[in-house]
């Protein structure tokens, strides 16, 4: 107890020195918490932008569809899967896929039609928000189409443009009709930008003479369950159809995110080291400065052990104060950035890489671990940095220590 009291008094003896050390430690802690939260936020955002827009956490397909992409390889029991998903509040979106030819004036292009339910799509993901111009499909069918960005450019199509569409329908006949462009998507991935045409599922059924058949069901619990949990929950209802998580469906993107995880870990280690070394430097200097003082203490009979205890108590008190202060500061800043993401749209209009659409907003993500680890790390650094010179001083010959400059 006396040790703590003496330590406390010692800290107040040289307020300038204590203040600087305190400021350095708390600022470093705050910055560590903030960068950790920002890195985590970036990774979470990337995963979200993969999952949330239209992919979902889990998808169900007919196993033959992946290899053949045949119109006829549809999901055998879509209703059972939808009912199961609905029973636990998992958002689900059914989609039918088909290929066709679209033309506008002299331009024509092969397209991949997605028959979607606009209402379900809206509550499922963010496809309806990912628009460059125009609006998303209206809830009622009416031969409207939303085009991928590059496809629209190929066709020279704008909102309101009339397109002629020709498909080979399921009964072998030549399905054809007119579609009106109601919206153009932002970049949602290289492939889809070039070929995607979204239409209402009922329009799809009429065009392809293919009612009630679907090729994909995408599922998203919106963070309540992990993709693996959703997959195992749905598996029973899927029968012979294949249930896969987005990481299984997009191993390339998954690998990219994993390597980004590793990259951010390295970045954090470097950052922690810089912060730690800064604090260590400040502490070392302030302890070295006091070596003559320790010499005096030794000269009047203080044991080396007692000096060590004294110094570590000081470091501990400093550490507790600075980390609390820094913790609060960092957590506040990170919390603020999680609510008010950094707007990068001045630099880039949102971009897509490897088929992942990134948003132009960079938000932080605050977790308990993201606060606790920097604080613990800071304590360790402060105690080590204070103990080393103190131990040196404690072993010094008092006369030498007294004259130490």
């Amino acid at each position, binding site marked *: 107890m006396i040790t703590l009291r003496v330590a406390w008094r010692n800290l107040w003896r040289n307020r300038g020195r204590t203040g600087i050390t305190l400021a350095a430690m708390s600022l470093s802690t705050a910055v560590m918490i903030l960068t950790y939260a920002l890195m985590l936020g970036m990774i979470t955002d990337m995963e979200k932008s993969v999952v949330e827009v239209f992919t979902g956490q889990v998808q169900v397909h007919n196993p033959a569809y992946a290899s053949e992409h045949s119109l*006829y390889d549809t999901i055998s029991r879509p209703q059972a899967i939808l009912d199961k998903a609905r029973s636990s509040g998992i958002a689900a979106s059914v989609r039918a896929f088909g290929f066709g*030819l679209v*033309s506008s004036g*002299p331009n*024509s*292009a*092969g397209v991949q039609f997605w028959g979607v339910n606009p209402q379900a799509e809206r509550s499922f993901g963010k496809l309806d928000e990912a628009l460059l111009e125009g609006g998303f499909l209206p809830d009622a069918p009416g031969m409207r189409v939303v085009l991928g960005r590059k496809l629209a450019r190929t066709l020279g199509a704008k909102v309101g443009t009339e397109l*002629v569409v*020709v498909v*080979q329908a*399921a*009964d*072998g*006949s*030549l399905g*054809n*009709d*007119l579609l009106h462009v109601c919206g153009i998507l932002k970049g949602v991935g290289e492939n889809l930008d070039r070929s995607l045409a979204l239409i209402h599922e009922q329009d799809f059924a009429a065009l392809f003479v293919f009612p009630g058949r679907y090729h994909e069901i995408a599922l998203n619990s919106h963070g309540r369950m992990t993709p693996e949990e959703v997959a195992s929950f749905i598996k029973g209802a899927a029968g012979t159809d294949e249930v896969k998580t987005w990481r299984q469906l997009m191993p390339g993107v998954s690998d990219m995110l994993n390597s980004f995880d590793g990259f951010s870990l390295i970045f954090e280690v470097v950052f922690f080291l810089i912060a730690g070394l800064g604090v260590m430097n400040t502490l070392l200097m302030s302890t070295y400065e006091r070596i003559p003082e320790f010499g005096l203490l030794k000269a009047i009979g203080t044991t080396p052990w007692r000096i060590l205890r004294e110094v570590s108590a000081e470091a501990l008190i400093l550490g507790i104060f600075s980390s609390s202060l820094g913790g609060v500061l960092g957590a506040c800043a990170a919390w603020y950035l999680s609510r008010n993401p950094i707007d990068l749209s001045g630099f880039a209009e949102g971009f897509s890489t490897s088929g992942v659409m990134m948003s132009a907003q960079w938000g932080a993500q605050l977790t308990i671990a993201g606060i606790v680890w920097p604080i613990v790390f800071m304590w360790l650094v402060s105690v080590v940095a204070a103990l080393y010179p103190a131990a040196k001083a404690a072993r010094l010959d008092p006369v030498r220590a007294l004259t130490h400059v």
Partner: protein
Amino acid sequence: MNRFIIAAIVLSVCSIPVSPPLRAAGGPPATAEDILNHVDDLFRGVSSHAIMQMTVTTAHYTRDMTLEAWSKGKENSLVRIVKPEKEKGTATLKAGSNIWNYLPKVNRIIKIPSSMMGGSWMGSHFTNDDLVKESRMADDYASSISFRGERKGVGMIELTLIPKPDAAVVWGKVVVEVMDGSYLPLKIDYYDERMKLVRTMVFSEIREVGTRRLPMRLRMIPVDKPNEYTEILYTTIEFDIPLQDSFFSLRSLKELEAP
């Protein structure tokens, strides 16, 4: 190239066989090239007009269509669906290496882009590409007689065609079987670059048409789906009818009546 046959035929009989006389008896025997030219010319001519039944059978549907087709030279052809009612008036125009489809339901003409040339024509086992190819087999392939004799009691000649180095063809090998004597085609096998058999075209029902003898029934069978096929049966076919070049225009593509 080999596909020209299909082109010629499907697209309507593009021609009129002005059948070049094969070597007279007693002269030197016909070479592989002579036979190929004969087969090529069988369906080529100044102009033609035909009505045919096309039957497409796949694992998922069977369709019967009645088609009316006109052709002039190897450049121009026009095919129009007469039946079924739902697709009546749907037409395909080939002029040079371009293909347009006319869609009566929406009253629009749509040009087939090059990226869709490999796609199915009207849901059949023929591709759009089959329709536009017009070069001659003898120009694209080096041919040799690989068999001559009797098979199933019929005297026949088998020609093996290997693409010439600079020929723009998709097949790795084509094997043509013709009847010995008449040199009418019986069967054509198409192999891909890995020498795997991809599809087979079978000719049957040889009939007299004017001064020519022609197989009236053609059946295309994709090898990977042995239960599927597209069959074309000529109901009527006439050659050397008067047709203006202007007939093969986007305007007549829309018009429902024949000239």
